[in-house]
């Protein structure tokens, strides 16, 4: 081959002897075989060739990454470049949490059903709950200023219930207060982002030398909690039995003199939203309502209380609209993320006793797993039916500077490290990275253990994280968990702290419900994605593995996250996009125990709850649909995220983008109407879990494709949802109703860092 490869050598041609057409001073590149190439042509060919090579090299390197992020388009390239530039512009640093040295030893906390307040006790309250004027809230010593627009005996309820009123609400009272929470009983090992052991600090900020073999105890974190717990209380509710919760603000009280650190609402206000209850605006806990009515403020302040009435009444009185798993969380304007992260989370499974359909009794109705125990006060517990609230957090390393847009809210705390807060929850969120934690918890416990009987369970998953999306599998591991630091991992790879390198999927999920309640039929999945605020319910048969072999007492299974999400933008690896086989983070250990009776009867394909019908002429609504595009704001301040180019304005409803009919209607719907709304992701390499209050929707078009005609390609298109999971640059058109109540509601991104920075809009139902 060497003979065919020319070996160029340069010769300077004397001006006088330059070949015709070449300028004086031109060099010649003479090939060894006698051919002559002018310098000019050599440069030209070299430049053209180099350009081509550079183009193809860049394309082969960048295209897969861009494609994964939904940015493989002319606009996407700019989005990716903008994001990269923004990375250098903003100061965004997170601590590395100390390593939990002995995970999977703490039992999974399973909240028992909260107990209602006795009728006699309610009767002694100064401000009685009730349907009258001023009875919906207590804003001062003279009472409140709002009333419930629909009490349990309202004509609307009677009309949908055969003329029979619902009973008076069951009353609960939850105090919103400051408390402490410990994520683990294990010793922890302070490590840095390189996975090396570093030092800890005591509560005065003095350095503490740590024995790597023993570690140190983790200090409790300060939380704001419903009744002072995280997660907060669990209400087991039932359709047809309204619940009234009096939320009373005690956040100004701090009897233990706990350090509140630098996040959580600075004025101690709160606003509670039952996600996604079919609830009147005054009880919905949304800032579009609260800024214009009731407290006329972002939330309820210390000393104030609000009676949120949850009628447990399906939309339109239609049984097909029944749901199965709500959660309630803070929704205080601008501070939802910090308050939720600080602990304001509660659980609200809801059962359907009608014909015993789904009443927590596996001998009746659909016979979903659950053994019900009724308590004397009207509450009830259900065994083998377990809510699992996933939440990720970061713990302070004492050396990371606390600095974000909210420094001014907590004077004196910003722009410096806080060694005195070592080991406590850290919360700073940034325009470019958002927020994700590096420790995964379930029901408030980091890496807990759940002991199960050999039978079927109903597991209700909730993502209560700020921004993290999970993809969950059930895996077995022969060698067991290894710490990420022991595997030589660094930086973002330390997220999750533990790995099961030899993990293999061993069981499948049988999905029975999603956001919108029971799905039309049970179906199996290898894994499922859980986006912020979403709920997914599964039945898992712990008697046998997916290959049919039986389980044995003592067998161990890991609930495993396989979605790698290094920051709040989106995943870097998941099953849908370039899976990373090394990323298997065990979140919870499941240990098989003794046999137990099992009267449930659930199997793949079993019909559960049919979808409400879609009118045959739904496409006639297309031209007049309302269009909302979520966008990056890039203002660098509080308006980082926008909808239709505007930040959240609580004073009124948003305006749609121009629709195909050429109109830009206000986001107002007549009560009792249905419509199509289009929700678009404006791109930029971010994903957005977009949540719409008040009624569930169903997707009818995704990225221009009619998903009602053929088998949906997207799992969310099988069922009713209250949250549109928007991939980068994705567009969905949803069909939904606006029934039963009037007044102001909101829709917003449930990446709470986005919501708190204006990615929300107001809409309303008019009479």
């Amino acid at each position, binding site marked *: 081959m060497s003979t065919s490869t020319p070996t160029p050598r340069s010769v300077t041609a004397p001006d006088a002897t330059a070949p015709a057409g070449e*300028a004086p001073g031109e060099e010649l590149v003479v090939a060894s075989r006698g051919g002559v190439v002018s310098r000019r042509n050599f440069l030209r060919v070299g430049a053209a060739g180099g350009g081509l090579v550079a183009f193809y090299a860049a394309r082969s390197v960048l295209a897969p990454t861009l494609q994964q992020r939904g940015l493989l388009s002319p606009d996407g390239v700019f989005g990716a470049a903008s994001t990269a530039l923004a990375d250098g512009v903003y100061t965004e640093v997170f601590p590395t949490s100390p390593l939990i040295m002995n995970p999977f030893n703490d039992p999974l906390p399973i909240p028992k059903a909260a107990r209602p307040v006795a009728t006699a006790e309610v009767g002694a309250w100064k401000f009685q709950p009730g349907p009258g004027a001023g009875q919906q809230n207590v804003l001062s010593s003279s009472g409140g200023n709002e009333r419930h627009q629909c009490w349990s005996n309202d004509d609307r309820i009677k009309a949908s219930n055969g003329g029979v009123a619902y009973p008076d609400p069951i009353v609960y009272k939850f105090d919103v207060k400051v408390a402490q929470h410990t994520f683990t009983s294990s010793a922890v090992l302070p490590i840095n982002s390189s996975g090396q052991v570093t030092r800890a600090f005591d509560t005065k900020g003095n350095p503490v030398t740590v024995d790597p073999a023993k570690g140190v105890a983790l200090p409790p974190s300060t939380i704001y909690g419903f009744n002072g717990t995280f997660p907060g209380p669990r209400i087991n509710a039932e359709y047809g039995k309204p619940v009234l919760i009096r939320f009373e603000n005690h956040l100004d009280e701090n009897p233990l003199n706990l350090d509140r650190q630098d996040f959580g609402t600075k004025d101690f206000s709160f606003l509670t939203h039952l996600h996604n209850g079919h609830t009147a605006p005054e009880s919905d806990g949304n800032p579009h309502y609260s800024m214009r009515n009731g407290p006329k403020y972002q939330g309820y302040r210390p000393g104030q209380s609000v009676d949120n009435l949850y009628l447990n009444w399906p939309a339109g009185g239609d049984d097909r609209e029944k749901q199965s798993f709500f959660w309630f969380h803070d929704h205080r304007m601008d501070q939802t993320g910090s308050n939720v992260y600080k602990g304001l989370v509660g659980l609200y499974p809801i059962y359907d006793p009608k014909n015993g359909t789904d009443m927590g009794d596996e001998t009746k109705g659909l016979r979903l797993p659950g053994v019900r125990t009724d308590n004397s006060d009207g509450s009830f517990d259900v065994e083998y039916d377990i809510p699992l609230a996933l939440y990720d957090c970061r713990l302070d390393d004492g050396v990371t500077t606390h600095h974000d847009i909210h420094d001014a809210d907590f004077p004196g705390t910003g722009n410096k490290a806080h060694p005195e807060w070592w080991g406590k929850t850290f919360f700073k969120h940034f325009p470019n990275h958002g927020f994700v934690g590096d420790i995964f918890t379930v029901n408030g416990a980091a890496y807990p253990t759940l002991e199960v009987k050999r039978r079927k369970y109903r597991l209700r998953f909730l993502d209560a994280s700020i921004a993290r999306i999970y993809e969950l599998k059930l895996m077995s591991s022969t060698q067991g968990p290894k710490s990420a630091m022991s595997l030589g991992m660094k930086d973002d790879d330390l997220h999750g702290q533990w790995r099961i390198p030899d993990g293999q999927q061993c069981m499948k999920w049988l999905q029975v419900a999603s956001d919108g309640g029971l799905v039309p039929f049970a179906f199996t999945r290898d894994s499922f994605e859980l986006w912020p605020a979403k709920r997914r319910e599964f039945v898992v048969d712990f008697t046998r593995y997916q290959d049919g072999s039986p389980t044995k007492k003592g067998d161990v299974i890991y609930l495993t996250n396989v979605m790698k999400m290094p920051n709040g933008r989106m995943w870097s690896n998941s099953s849908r996009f370039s899976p990373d086989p090394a990323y298997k983070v065990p979140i919870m250990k499941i240990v098989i125990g003794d046999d137990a009776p099992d009267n449930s009867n659930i199997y793949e394909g079993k019909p559960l709850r049919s979808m409400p019908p879609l009118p045959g002429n739904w496409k006639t609504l297309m031209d007049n649909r309302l269009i909302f595009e979520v966008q990056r704001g890039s203002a660098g301040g509080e308006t980082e995220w926008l909808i239709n180019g505007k930040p959240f304005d609580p004073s009124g409803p948003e305006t749609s983008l121009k629709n195909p009919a050429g109109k830009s209607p206000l986001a107002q719907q007549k009560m009792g109407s249905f419509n199509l709304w289009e929700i678009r992701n404006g791109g930029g390499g971010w994903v957005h879990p977009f949540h719409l209050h008040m009624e569930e929707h169903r997707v009818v078009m995704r990225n221009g494709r009619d998903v009602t005609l053929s088998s949906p390609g997207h799992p969310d298109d099988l069922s009713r949802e209250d949250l549109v999971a928007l991939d980068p640059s994705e567009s969905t058109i949803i069909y939904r109703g606006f029934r039963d109540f009037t007044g102001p509601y909101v829709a917003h991104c449930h990446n709470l860092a986005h919501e708190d920075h204006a990615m929300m809009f107001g809409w309303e139902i008019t009479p």
Partner: protein
Amino acid sequence: MTLSSTLPAPTAVDAGPRPRRGRIPWPTVLLLAALLAFADGFWLTTTQGAVGAIERAQSPFAAWLRDSALSLPLFALAVLAALAVARRRLRPELRRPRRVVATALLVAAAGSLVGTAELVASAAYDYALQVPQLEAMHAAHITASSPAEVDRPGQCTGLCDQERLTLAADERAARYAAAGVLVTNVVVVGWGVALLGGRLDDGPRRRSPRPA
């Protein structure tokens, strides 16, 4: 409008025969101006997307094409100016490697001046658009029962702090992008000159008649 079709005569520092007034090498000027305009336009659009006002950050590809095309005359002037300076300071015939390299660097520098000026102007415009947005957002958070509690007299908190942070982000992004513009311009001009065969003056000379 008639654009001058000649460049200033070179000074008589060269020892060679007195140079004639050079023709404007329009293909060279246009090629280099286009390369610079679209390369610097990339930085401009990227910066808008990173920290700029949302109104200007939509449909970035179309914005890049439009803004780059609009800025083409500015870059053409910059290239012309650089070539004029090069001819005056060096020699009219920009073919020898050192002269070509020096001229190319001059062109890159001139382009970077224009590109940086664009970035600064764009950042200022972005900030002007962002301030009303910040004010509107701030106002939306204040109700009768919710005074602007974070606005403390005499201190830059609340709205003032947000405006300061926004301006700082715009300024920092413009600075980073300006550095990017300079590096990019050196690379694209170098590539463009190579594509021109290493010559920055007008096209190939007319062939001499072959000797009989």
